[in-house]
């Protein structure tokens, strides 16, 4: 975890005409689980959309693996990232296996049988080999998210982005998903950037987190979850983490 893989310097985040966060500066280090944290509507998903190249930053500098998002670098940068969206975003007309096969078919020179073998291995990693031939609507929300993680990992990306992995899941399924993220991190050494506001997940999986505040339109804290909980003097940070502790007891 020595060198940064994502660098944000004085980034203004938002959409044309709407600035949600101002002057955001932080680095994500290789091999860490980095959490984008904050209340609803604070702009954490917007920051992730900038990181994955869906929206350009309003100002400032955002580099992924040393490159800024542009028409020239898009193809190269897309190969370096894998994304799991909040809904899973699996293609409804394809089976789970076909969803995982899609990036392999489009971007690798593997032969048919090799592709299937690799896709089945990925599904096995997320413990869903049995559901390979099911359509997304035939499996649960938690399973869909796991298939989406397998698809995100298909091209062996450097960074995996997970948008609200716990959203809409019961605590047991959510905890199992956290275990899966930790397992993948340990086994693959990849960098994970996770958008969430679920405190149990944060304390379980995060190496570091950046916290955003809607009212102040900016990043208000950066550090380890325990460090923020115990060391921050910011009333919003304290309130956020204490609320979590009370719920946790």
């Amino acid at each position: 975890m020595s060198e940064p893989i994502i660098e944000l310097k004085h980034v203004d985040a938002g959409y044309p005409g709407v600035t949600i966060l101002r002057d955001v500066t932080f680095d994500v280090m290789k091999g860490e689980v980095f959490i984008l944290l904050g209340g609803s509507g604070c702009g954490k998903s917007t920051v992730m959309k900038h990181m994955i190249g869906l929206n350009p930053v309003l100002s400032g500098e955002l580099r992924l693996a040393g490159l800024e998002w542009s028409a020239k670098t898009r193809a190269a940068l897309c190969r370096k990232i894998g994304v799991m969206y909040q809904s899973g975003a699996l293609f409804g007309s394809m089976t789970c296996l076909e969803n995982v096969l899609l990036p392999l078919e489009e971007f690798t020179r593997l032969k048919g049988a090799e592709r299937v073998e690799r896709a089945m291995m990925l599904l096995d990693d997320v413990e869903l080999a049995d559901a390979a031939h099911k359509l997304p609507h035939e499996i649960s929300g938690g399973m869909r998210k796991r298939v989406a993680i397998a698809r995100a990992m298909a091209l062996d990306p450097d960074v995996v982005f997970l948008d609200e992995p716990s959203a809409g899941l019961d605590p047991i399924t959510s905890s199992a998903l956290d275990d899966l993220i930790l397992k993948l991190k340990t086994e693959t050494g990849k960098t994970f950037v996770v958008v969430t506001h679920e405190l149990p997940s944060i304390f379980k999986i995060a190496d570091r987190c950046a916290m955003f505040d809607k009212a102040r339109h900016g990043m208000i804290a950066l550090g380890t979850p325990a460090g923020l909980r115990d060391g921050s003097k910011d009333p919003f940070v304290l309130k956020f983490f204490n609320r979590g502790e009370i719920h946790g007891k």
Partner: protein
Amino acid sequence: MAGIFESVGRWTVNGWRSQRANMAFLGETVCEAMGMVVHPRRFRFADSALAFQRAAFDGLPISTGIGFLLGVILAFQSAAALQMFGVEVYVADLLAIGLFRELGPLVTAIILAGRSGSAFAAEIGTMKVDEELDALTTMGLPPVRFLVLPRVVAAVLAMPVLTIFAELAGLVGGAIVLQMMNVPTVVFWRHVEATTSVFMISFGLAKGALFGLLVGLVGCSAGMRTSSTADGVGAAATSAVVGGIVAIAVTDGILAVLCYVWQL
């Protein structure tokens, strides 16, 4: 008064933005289509075949049925007038020219806009709401290549198939009506044969394919521009049907003028 200016201004700005988005979509589609010519293996044949099946085969009963009724109605309406002169047999000529040149492609295209244009918009719109378009984009797969081109190609190929069936059904309808008016079916078909030409039929089918292109593009464009609100997909489907029919009508008008000028 200020409200009127504000409304006109907003309408103008929104219209400009919409047209700019349409132009950008068209440009991207043309670029991707040219890319397909260079790399045909990248084209998603299976997706296109599925869209063709839904647009052509599933749409065959409705377009054939409407074509048949169109022939029956036209025959009855025109026979009433032509009977006064004792030349009801010319209903066959009227039907052949009307269906092959104009009504066959036009009515079929309107049916396609209602069935498949709206379906394209709803499918792609739902995918957008479910973040599937974002997923494609971040995988490095252009949604236009993946979703739009297969559907547009399917619509272009489906239209001639649907059109020819609608036209033949219309002629059968007309033949039945004239049979009831004591015009032998053989005479009816001889008149049809004498009136039509390969060029006339080909022109109608080519026009149908052009209408299919418009329906596909308008439907997919509406889907790609779906907003993420609750009524976004419904609005996109409506926009696809209305936009598709307007595009068909305008293009047909332009073609009618050109045919008159060039005496086709």
